[in-house]
């Protein structure tokens, strides 16, 4: 099945330019070659059905209030990363998240980095995600980040680059596990000849980290996962994680704040809550502090946090550190707090408020990718080489009118990985989101979510726009 596999330009995960598979993909390559088209089709189908049957889906609600369930399409060719490569990635990720954590502690505290002019003050204090409500926070371990999702891509030389940081509400963790379960169940023989690092024990690390982040080092803290509820499209993620980690899943209406302490409404009365792993955005978290019309939050939650009676993870106001505009400064941030050079590099980024860089971008806009600073979900992105003259012109104007709202980057040809499509296996662009757990010992979950752009040539991997997922294997030898 793979004899006609074509490598377009750019780096392919499985195949070298010579047409031979990379050594860590040899066994998979052999196996896939032995599959027939029927094999592939039927097993691919089986995989999708197993997701739907298990209810691993997000609901798209139509007007009849009886929604349709959609699942993230799964592709069975894994993204395989050898041990040494992963080791470097791990170090780079932990370094980056430690630096960003220090940054958050600083900008909500003494703001030394702003005094020293490393990052423009304006970028931080006027950022819509900057929360003045949490000045001088007193977080356990001075930790603002419990779980980070850092998106990585590979350029045409195969070098890993950081695409984006997600320090607020990174989603997709449950798919990491579901993808692995699916592979094991539907394609068990693919694992032969491989020693793939297990992810089963990761839940206990998540639990331990949550415990370690309890306020005042309280022992046996009560930990909950605060979810917006069943109508949220990531609800399955929330309920799966809560169950696997071993913590209670709650909604805003199950909690109340009394005397600056947070309580949970149980069948035996009120029980105090110590740690909240919240999957609700800052805006909706507390109607007394943020959006007053939020029905999802808990009045007084932020105050309880300020009083040091409850830990809220990820911390409030993290948005100031994963901002696309701040992204170009992260290498300097790493040097500033850690005195080290970044192990993993950023994608080259043009800062459009700088006249010279802006000039360059306007002239070369058809070669570049332009992104809004506060976008998500892959919408409203300009991919220069794919765009119509009309769209290019719109973005030119947007940049001229609001240069602070956009950044530009060279069009990186993301790496490709063989993916099963109607006609057989074809190369599709992927990215990787590893998850970093910041307990007392920072850890990176082995692998992470590999997302694949299912449409030919597309560089947009988000599931809301037709992206799919792959299992990610970190090899143990």
């Amino acid at each position: 099945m793979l004899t006609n596999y074509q490598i377009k330009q750019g780096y392919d995960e499985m195949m070298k330019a010579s047409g031979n598979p990379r050594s860590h993909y040899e066994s998979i390559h052999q196996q896939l070659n032995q599959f027939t088209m029927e094999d592939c089709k039927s097993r691919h189908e089986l995989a999708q059905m197993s997701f739907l049957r298990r209810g691993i889906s997000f609901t798209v609600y139509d007007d009849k209030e009886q929604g349709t369930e959609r699942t993230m399409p799964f592709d069975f060719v894994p993204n395989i990363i050898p041990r040494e490569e992963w080791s470097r990635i791990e170090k780079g990720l932990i370094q980056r998240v430690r630096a960003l954590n220090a940054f958050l502690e600083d900008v909500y505290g003494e703001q030394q980095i702003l005094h020293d002019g490393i990052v423009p003050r304006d970028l931080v204090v006027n950022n819509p995600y900057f929360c003045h409500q949490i000045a001088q926070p007193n977080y356990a371990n001075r930790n603002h980040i419990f779980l980070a999702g850092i998106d990585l891509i590979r350029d045409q030389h195969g070098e890993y680059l950081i695409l984006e940081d997600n320090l607020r509400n990174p989603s997709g963790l449950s798919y990491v596990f579901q993808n692995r379960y699916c592979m094991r169940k539907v394609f068990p023989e693919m694992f032969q000849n491989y020693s793939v690092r297990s992810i089963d024990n990761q839940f206990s690390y998540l639990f331990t980290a949550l415990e370690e982040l309890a306020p005042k080092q309280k022992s046996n803290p009560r930990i909950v996962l605060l979810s917006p509820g069943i109508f949220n499209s990531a609800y399955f993620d929330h309920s799966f994680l809560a169950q696997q980690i071993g913590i209670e899943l709650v909604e805003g209406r199950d909690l109340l704040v009394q005397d600056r302490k947070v309580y949970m409404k149980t069948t035996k009365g009120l029980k105090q809550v110590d740690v909240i792993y919240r999957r609700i955005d800052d805006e909706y978290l507390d109607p007394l502090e943020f959006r007053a019309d939020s029905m999802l939050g808990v009045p007084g939650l932020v105050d309880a946090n300020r009083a040091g009676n409850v830990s809220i993870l990820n911390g409030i106001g993290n948005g100031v550190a994963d901002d696309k505009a701040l992204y170009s400064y992260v290498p300097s941030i790493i040097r500033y707090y850690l005195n080290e050079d970044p192990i993993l590099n950023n994608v080259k980024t043009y800062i459009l408020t700088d006249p010279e860089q802006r000039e360059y971008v306007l002239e070369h806009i058809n070669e570049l990718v332009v992104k809004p600073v506060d976008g998500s979900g892959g919408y409203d992105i300009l991919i220069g080489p794919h765009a119509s003259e009309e769209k290019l012109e719109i973005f030119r104007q947007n940049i001229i009118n609001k240069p602070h709202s956009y950044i530009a980057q060279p069009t990186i040809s993301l790496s490709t990985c063989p993916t099963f499509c109607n006609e057989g296996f074809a190369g599709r662009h992927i990215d990787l989101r590893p998850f970093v757990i910041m307990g007392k010992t920072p850890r990176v979950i082995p692998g992470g979510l590999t997302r694949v752009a299912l449409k030919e040539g597309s560089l947009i991997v988000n599931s809301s726009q037709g992206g799919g997922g792959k299992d990610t294997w970190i090899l143990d030898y």
Partner: protein
Amino acid sequence: MLSRAADSLFWMARNIERAETSARLIDINLVSMLENFDPDIDTDPYRWESLISISGNKEQFYELYEQCDTRSVINFLAFSIENPDSILNNIVVSRENARTIRGMIPQELWELINSFYLKIKEYPSDQWEIENIGYFFQMVKDQSIQFQGIVNAMMSRGEAYTFLKMGKYLERAGKIARILDENIHHSIESRFAKEVIEHHQWSSVLHSVSGYEAYLEMYRSAIEPDQVMEFLTFNKNYPRSILFSVERLIEAFDEMEQDKVQHYNRDLFIALGKLHSELKFGTIREVLNEGVNSWYHNIQDNCYQIGNLISRTYYLGELDVK
């Protein structure tokens, strides 16, 4: 556990039980109608109307449908979106409840409820024929039995299980009282002898709770109203008797409270105790003397009160700040 989760479990169990009961009742009625016993009885509106009283609301029915015939009744009781107690709505509610507490129930139970829901949604509710609508009710019964089986075989006997148990048996106790009440309620005029009518009617009641064989084992011979009432009210061994259901309910309460009566659960404890005594020490003679309708009305009231007390005791509870 979270009050809201307990609430979802309780109502999920009630709704599944309710759906199964409806399915059984309608099915039996349909079967005996198809057997064409007596044309007068078949077109007897009381027959279908009493079903509507048990599983729905007469006023609402007549608002929605012009006449009381087989088709409209089944539509109302099985598929109506407007009837909050239609089988369709029972399952929709169960499924929503199940989604809320997915983390607390076995994966297989969730999958079962989900597929139950999908089956009902996909059923051509506007195109059914009397000849094959029986399959629908059979499906409902089967799914319900599977639900019970999975709960029984796979759930740890913890708080979640206990709330399911409470919901199921409270629903059952109240419903049986309601069914008996309805059946005593009306007399049927017919050209056949009274005994024959009664035999037919009360056989149906037994069949609708799958108790026909169990009854015969105890009472042999004739199907007499008094005996059927006694069997379904005071028998402590038959799972669909009121006494049996109340004893299971008390068991659940004891498991929850670990046999401790405290100020917050005292009212519930007393209400359960009083209802239990009536059933444990009562006889059918006393019921007949007091007047059957008012006696069964009382039982239903008690069940309703107990439902409220359960809500108060576990969902709002005492605000205990230590």
